[in-house]
């Protein structure tokens, strides 16, 4: 039986997180937890133990960059791969150059479900 990948998405747009959760879970391949506050990311990650964390970059309380920094400093969480979701870059900047932000891959909003699953597949290390 297929083991579902656990995805933690942290985005201040709660409705976006919720929709992503529903869409990803509908594929049957993912189990998703959505958080809408940057500060919630660490405790949620501890509890949920995700395979991948999707972080929105621009968030009012604590931005994605800070969250990523804290994750990296946490010995239990530092090995979980991270990807950024951002409304600020062009998608072609993200794809052909395979660029990254602070060493993490990113994907531009708006994003289709298939783009998102392709992104996740590419960056989740099979364990």
């Amino acid at each position, binding site marked *: 039986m297929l083991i579902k990948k656990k995805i933690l998405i942290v985005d201040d*747009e709660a*409705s*976006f997180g919720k*929709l*992503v959760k*529903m*869409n990803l879970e*509908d594929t049957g391949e993912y189990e998703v937890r959505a958080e809408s506050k940057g500060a919630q990311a660490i405790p949620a990650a501890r509890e949920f133990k995700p395979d991948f964390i999707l972080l929105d970059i*621009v968030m009012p309380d604590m931005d994605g960059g800070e969250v990523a920094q804290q994750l990296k400093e946490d010995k239990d969480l530092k090995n979980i791969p991270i990807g950024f979701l951002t*409304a*600020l*870059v*062009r*998608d*072609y900047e993200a794809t*052909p150059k395979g660029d990254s932000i602070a060493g993490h891959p990113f994907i*531009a*909003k*708006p*994003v*289709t*479900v298939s783009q998102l699953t392709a992104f996740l597949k590419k960056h989740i290390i099979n364990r």
Partner: protein
Amino acid sequence: MDEKRIKVLLIEDSVFDTKLIKDLCRESCSNQFELDQRENLSEAFKALKEKNFDLILLDLTLPEAEGLETLAKVNGRYPRIPIIVLTRTDDETLALKSVSMGAQDYLIKGQVDGVILKRSIRYGIERKQMEEELRKHRENLEELVAARTVELIESNKQLMQEISKRNSAENSLQAAFNQLKEARAQLIQAEKMEIVGRLASGIAHEVKNPLAIILQGMEYLARKIPSQQEDLATTFKFMAEAVNRADNIVKGMLDFSGVSLVERQSQEIIPIVEKSLVLMKHSFDLNHIEVIRDFKDNLPQVNVDKNKIEQVFLNLFENAVQAMAKGGKLKVRIWAEKVSENDEWVGKRKEDVFHPGEEIIKMEIEDTGTGIPENLLDKVFDPFFTTKRSIGGTGLGLSIVRSIMEMHQGKIKIINKQGGSGVQVVIWFKTEPRGG
């Protein structure tokens, strides 16, 4: 020893009168005067030549006209020697005439005594001296005036030069002013761009997030609603296209505003073109477009931001592909050339971007597509001008292209190809000095 004696020449034909005058002289002042007498004018002139006389006593008891004529002649030839006229009658008019013609005084024979004669002679000499001084003074003055006039003419000339200099200064001031106006316009444009830039990132965030929600929401709904109905599928398709269009506008604005951050580096132009062609390859293949390269070797380097220039090529290639919906040829030529004075965009002024003799890189990108209706040619660079709204065109492509070219002091123009349909894009790049 005679130096102090006053030398007087008496011009007198009458022996009697001569004796009279000599007697008067001797009577009062024999030791002060040295008196010579001549009978007529020619004798007198001879004497005047030989000796420096201090004064002439001229007898006018000749017929009136003759006497005045004599006075005029003597005075004309020896203007510096004072003349005293002797008359027989107390003829007021004659006397006045003589004085107006230059005589110092007039004496009436018979009424003259030694004292009067002596005084008249002295005053005559003094007056003449004064006149002389006055004359010298006047001459001096005239010289001064002449000198001043020369000076004035000179300074006038300088003034004229200054005026013409001032005029040309005014002209260059005007030119500078015009440049300033231009710079200001550019600054305003730049400022607008910056505002667009700041707005763009704000808008990007504020618009892309809702778009992201809409897109995710639509996909969710599309799965949940039983989709046997074709109308529903069409509706979702329209919505997805609308989201895509809005997203493209925002991307375009990001590009448009991102133009101000250029990171330039000396590099080859061809790898940038090649990279853009590679990125477009899929699109070329899909649309049956054959790419023909005509790249010259040994090109000078260009100082450019390669991401921006790549964006230029991508936009141009994309336009070409869109214009060749049924397939076609895309020809890209690159070569270096020294521009001449007659070329477009070339001028000798400092503010001209390209100067005669300068080596530049020229590019031509030609497609075999639809071409552009002549009346729209000058609109294609306008932001938001597009004939492709229905397929998601934003009309920002070429305005971005032009901004980037301007950032690089390059030039771009778009014309319809001559002979056969399609568009020709002409691009000029400034180059780096060779062997640097």
